[in-house]
């Protein structure tokens, strides 16, 4: 199973490569390659046959742990892609990190692999408690990875992340406990079947706790305060994983809860949807608003993640076919785009040692490939065609119209304009501003092991814009199933 490879691999990393960091990095990359191959095989199978399950240890649910691979689980595809590239990228980046002593580098790969294993596990588990375990794996390794950078406020950022993250985990645990009390089961499919006759009030509390907990993980306004520091301070490959993938855990959690509740038809979630739509819209605006005032490039990217989560949550809240499709595509595409941007920013910081836009002025002349890739990322995230971001904007706006909420289409489209304001500052700084420091013209382009991931991701941003149908093969059946459940309830 895909989840075992990185999990076991992660635990073994320090043992295999106690002394030599080179072995550690190739080991990590190898593990990730194996995982990716397995993931692709699974994804092919799910497109051909539909969802299927694997029972751990042969125990049949609801007693045993079920791993269920359905279309939502196709998230692991992007996890593997970004994870693989982030590991490759880390080869050079970790050597340079101040906070990371050389002998400790294997532990860094351990944490990164653990994090990725958690991400894969959480998308394929069919068991709520198991879900929680993976959630904790992700969170704990995330805290440590943030602290690893050795920046001045790294510990502080990690601590803030830890504190808020722990509270949210508790909420999720509480919700799981409530659900268990209501149904006597932890298996998602089983819960869904048993939930029919459950009392509404405790279920409402459980859903509320789930929502709040997951919204913290997803950094939705007003629960976003932990994110900017943590994502900006973390080492760039980690930022890419955190921003591109880890925040999506909250979204996946929401999707699973929706699946359960809609499947059971026991509750009407229209009220929640209303709240989500509004919070999504506010997140878009607030994220963009704060990003405008950032001079630190990674800080800016971190706030932009909040805006983009706003897109996704708005799409979820709209609960119309196109809205959900848009939200799901954005889970994929945002991971691609944000990874491009964070890894690109990492290249710039690696070569120049500078991280504010003012100081980076003129860098487009000396690092043309990185700057070009980041510009593509910027255009993509604003949603200008023909890039990946446009499709999401298109679908979510269409979903808003479909749901009869034209106002939200309006908010979305103009929120994107707001976002453009600060990305154009970045592009201007790269290309059209005189260098603040003449030395910046002398820096070299990033080394290949860092540049290739960035360029590959940027190319994908463009390709996904044109071949936007590709993720739809996974998304459409899932959305249809979800909506048919909703129709039943």
């Amino acid at each position: 199973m895909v989840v075992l490879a990185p999990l076991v691999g992660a635990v073994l990393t320090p043992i295999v490569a106690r002394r030599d960091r080179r072995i550690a990095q190739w080991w990590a990359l190898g593990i990730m390659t194996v995982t990716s191959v397995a993931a692709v095989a699974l994804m092919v199978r799910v497109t051909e046959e539909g969802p299927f399950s694997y029972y751990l240890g042969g125990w049949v649910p609801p007693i045993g742990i079920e791993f269920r691979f359905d279309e939502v689980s196709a998230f692991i595809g992007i996890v593997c892609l970004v994870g693989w590239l982030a590991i490759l990228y880390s080869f050079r980046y970790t050597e340079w990190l101040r906070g990371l002593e050389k002998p400790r580098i294997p532990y860094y790969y351990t944490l990164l692999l653990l994090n990725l294993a958690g991400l894969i596990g959480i998308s394929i588990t069919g068991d709520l408690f198991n879900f929680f375990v993976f959630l904790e794996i992700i969170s704990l390794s995330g805290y440590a990875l943030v602290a690893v950078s050795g920046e001045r406020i790294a510990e502080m950022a990690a601590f803030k992340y830890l504190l808020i993250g722990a509270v949210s985990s508790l909420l999720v645990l509480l919700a799981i406990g409530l659900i268990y009390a209501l149904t006597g089961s932890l298996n998602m499919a089983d819960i869904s079947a048993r939930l029919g006759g459950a009392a509404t009030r405790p279920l409402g509390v459980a859903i509320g706790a789930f929502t709040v907990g997951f919204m913290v993980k997803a950094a939705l306004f007003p629960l976003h305060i932990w994110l900017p520091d943590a994502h900006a301070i973390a080492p760039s490959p980690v930022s890419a994983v955190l921003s591109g993938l880890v925040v999506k855990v909250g979204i996946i959690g929401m999707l699973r809860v929706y699946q359960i509740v809609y499947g059971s038809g026991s509750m009407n979630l229209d009220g929640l949807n209303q709240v989500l739509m509004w919070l999504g819209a506010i997140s878009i605006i607030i994220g963009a608003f704060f990003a405008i005032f950032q001079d630190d490039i990674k800080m800016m990217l971190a706030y932009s993640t909040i805006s983009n989560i706003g897109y996704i949550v708005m799409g979820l809240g709209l609960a119309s076919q196109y809205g959900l499709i848009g939200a799901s595509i954005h889970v994929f595409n945002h991971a691609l785009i944000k990874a491009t941007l964070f890894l690109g920013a990492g290249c710039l910081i690696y070569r120049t040692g500078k991280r504010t836009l003012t100081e980076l002025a003129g860098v487009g002349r000396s690092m043309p490939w990185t700057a070009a890739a980041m510009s593509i990322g910027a255009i993509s995230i604003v949603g200008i065609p023909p890039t990946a971001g446009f499709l999401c904007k298109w679908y979510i706006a269409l979903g808003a119209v479909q749901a009869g909420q034209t106002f939200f289409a309006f908010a979305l489209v103009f929120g994107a304009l707001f976002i453009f304001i600060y990305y154009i500052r970045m592009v201007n700084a790269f290309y059209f501003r005189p260098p603040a420091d003449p030395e910046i013209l002398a820096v070299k382009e990033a080394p290949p092991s860092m540049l290739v991931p960035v360029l590959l991701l940027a190319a994908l941003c463009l390709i996904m814009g044109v071949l936007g149908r590709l993720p739809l093969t996974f998304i459409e059946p899932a959305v249809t199933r979800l909506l048919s459940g909703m129709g039943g309830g």
Partner: protein
Amino acid sequence: MEVQDIRVVLAPAVSLLCAALVFASAERTFWRRFFSLSAAAIKLLIIMSMLPGSLRGVVYVYDLVQFTPGVGLAFRADALGMFFAAVSATLWLFTTIYAIGYMEGEPHRRRFFGFFALCVSTTVGVSFAENLLTLFLFYETLTICTYPLVIHDETPEAMKAGRKYLAYTLTGGAFVLLGSVIVYGLTGTMTLSQPGILSLESGRVTLAALFVCLIAGFGVKAAIMPLHSWLPSAMVAPTPVSALLHAVAVVKVGAFGILRVIYNIYGVELLDELGFCDYLAVLAAFTIIAASVIAIFQDNFKRRLAFSTISQLSYIVLGASLLTPYGATAAVVHLANQAFAKITMFFVAGSIQRKTGKTTVHELAGIGYRMPYTMAAFTVAALSFVGVPLFAGFVTKWYLSLGGLQAEKWWVVLVMLVSSLLNAVYWLPIVYAAFFKAPADAVVEVHESNWTLLVPTLVCAAYVIVFGITVTVPGMPFSLANAAVEFVFGM
């Protein structure tokens, strides 16, 4: 008759490839010129090779990629699209020649020519767009590609103009996107191949809101007042950019979008019933007069040209919003007439600036002695704007007035008359000063600009005359415009 033909994709693709090659050619001047010129020529050949078919009524289509069923990147060269594409491709060739001469010795030429080619690629993409989504895709890309051209000089003033440009046009783009989404939500299709896809069932209020969305969105680029103020600011760009982009590509894409909205999204019959176009016509008429009045008081040559552009663009909008066949004819042919006359003027302004450093109108006394050919070309363009018969501008005014009478709006004729008068007030004094006033400097000798600057100027001026006298000759652009109008009105 519809024919699958890859040429509609090749036409925009040629310039896209050209842009890639220009970026790849680093600082090698020869290759950059070679790629730019040959791409311009090939593109023109491709489009011209489709022209005979188009005149016979053949529509070339090609579906490239499907996003979702019913919405995808699809190209379709109908008469209106062919007309616009032929105009932009022709002008691209001339502007490229001109730009090579004009930009000699300037920094960042690779960036300049690369984005220049991208802009033309997107303009042709807009004209061949089969559906609103494809159109929007190229419309937005055009905005992004022109930004580096507008701020080419990288001065604080240019950066400020660039910001303003982006703020206006991207907001416009957002409105277009919103409109497109609503269209799709209402009809489940976005095709531009029908004479109207909306129907009254959608409700008056929705249709009104949608109309405002789409027209305001495209109106930003078409510089309808009060959405025009980015255009004069953007004149800080190098002259070939102003010429091609701000007299032809960018602004015409806006006007073209409005034509598509009126003729292919709403349809003439529906709009006639709804009556929204009356408001648009009044707005356009106001823009025509007001922009002309402002132009009179501009001393900077390029700014005067900018306000003249604003005024001229509204001819197109006015013609389209009359909803009569003659009005439509005027709107379509003015896409070409305005383009050729205005680009001539921009070429002249650029040549004078390069040769003598003069940028204001009052310095032009006696310039006709020094640059007689250049100023002769200017005179042709000026007479065309005034609407003297035998020049292209007259054709527009004639049909526009007829269209106004057809729509029983007699005031359109009045607007045409006043506008001609105002055009005379701000163009003819320049002609007079150039040829009949004594030059300021003592030495008078003929000192024309290079052939790279002069030839495109003269050829464009020649076109203005040709368009003016060949209206009834079959096979000329005018017949293509007629074909477009006949389709729209179901004649």
